[in-house]
């Protein structure tokens, strides 16, 4: 009998398929190595086991200009997971318990 693996719960974010969002997705891929990206018409689903992090510094580096974490509001479609923190430098999605 095989051992039971601890259940892995995915957190995720769905983003619009726009220029700005594509850069955010590139940043997500860089900062979340276990993230799985699923492209659908008009939107992109990014899922990660347990935790997903968006770092302003990475987005700015890839975008080539200043970016406010609040600007995510223009690209976001949906979330799965708890917004455990959101400040000037990062946004963290994870389940709490």
């Amino acid at each position, binding site marked *: 009998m095989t051992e039971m693996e601890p*259940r892995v719960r995915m957190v995720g974010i769905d983003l619009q398929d726009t220029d700005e969002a594509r850069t955010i997705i590139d940043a997500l891929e860089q900062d979340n190595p276990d993230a799985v990206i699923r492209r659908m018409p*008009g939107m992109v689903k990014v899922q990660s086991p347990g935790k997903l992090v968006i770092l302003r510094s990475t987005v700015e580096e890839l975008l080539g200009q200043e970016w406010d974490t609040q600007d995510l*509001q*223009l690209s976001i479609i949906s979330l799965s997971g708890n917004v455990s923190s959101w400040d000037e430098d990062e946004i963290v999605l994870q*389940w709490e*318990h």
Partner: protein
Amino acid sequence: MRERYQQLTRGVDWTPSYVSREQMYPYTRFEGIKINDWEAWEDPFRLTVDAYCKYQTEKDKRLYAVLDSFAQGQGHLQASDARYFNALRLFLQGVTPLEYQAHRHFAYLARHLDGPGARFACLSQSIDELRHAQTEIHAMSMYNKYYDGFHSFPRISDRLWYLSVPKSYFDDGLSSGPFEFMTAISFSFEYFLTNLLFVPFMSGASFNGDLATMSFGFSAQSDESRHMTLGLEVIKFILQQDEGNVPIMQDWIDKWFWRGYRLLGLVACMQDYFLPRKVMSWKEAFELYLEQQMLDGLFPDLEYYGIRPPRHVDQAIAEKEYMSHQVHWTFYQYSHAASFTTTIPPEEELDWLSEQYPDTFDQYYRPLYDKAAVMEASGSRFFNSALPMLCQVCQIPMAFTDVGNLGSFTQRFSEFRGERYNTCSDGCKWIFDREPEKYIQAWLPVHQILQGNCGGATIPEVLEWAGIQPGDGGEYKTSTDAENWRAWHQNGVTA
């Protein structure tokens, strides 16, 4: 960012000195929910009024640019088929009025909740919901220029039988207390069930060439992420404030899961039958968004607070195999009295349904459409002229069956003050039995027609009273829309 948010929201709150707190906020105690510290409310988005206005303005600019461009380019002709517009009719009639009601009620909460963080979140949502109502109307207004069934939606939504389903759902919430409303709408509808409403419609739009609705959808969804966060925050906040809140919340989660799930029957029908280009089946969407994301993702989190998955969820899981078919078969036979058209799906789509629903479609539902096809070919397309029995709670015709027994319609009964009330399922009966005084007041369209309150004793009189015009309903293939679609897609003919 955090300090700025604190100053512009909490910092402007005050303790009343001319009146007591209870007099200033009279509605937040009667439900039995205990809030000991409103300061514990956390807003993860930390949106201040200036940031709110900045982002919402930008979203509107982008959206209206798309809508203008779409209209200028006669974008409606890009749709997969005019049959697709029935999905939009259902949306405009069934969802848009609810957005407006949400706007009104969140404005009420923006005044009547004790905590400033909660009030501000509700104020933002109130303006969001008005924005949604308005942008939906704008997005669909161009279809109203070319197709039937889009006109008069506020009147139709108040009077027409199947629209009492979404209307009564929301009225139930509006007439509940503030905490139940937030559990019902912010949590249950805007978080728990939201993807099952939005993804079918918006991806459906995208797959079927409807750029206008798709753009609206993505634009609105960015607001929805804030609403989802409010929903999650509200439920955790209430659960953490007092242990006594837990059983009250559990009951509400149970009630509003089932009410929302039954309402989504209309969406399931749309998703499986109204989209010429399919996104995914209701069954697949249910497995992804409800079972995987919610039951496996969210609810283990809520276990920490003493919450278990909703009562009757097992029936919803079992019903994923056939619920959309039961609803569509009902709408197919009653669309002569609706503000949308229906039709037997083309052969390839019937094959898709057989493939998506291997355990039920061929056994129980495909034979119905085969028979309907024979009737149609002989010149008597099947329409049901009888008035159906409606469930006292969800108000849907009683076309549902017991789990494990698809051959027999479910009828549950409750007696209250000497009268018998009928419900479609254990879920709806449970809801009725815990609040009978509320549900005996339901405005059931069929009863109202029989009482003579709907314009007359014949279907044409009832439809006129409801605001329906010829061409709005019936069979798709022989409709004016279908005829126009063919004409407009021939070479050299313009709209």
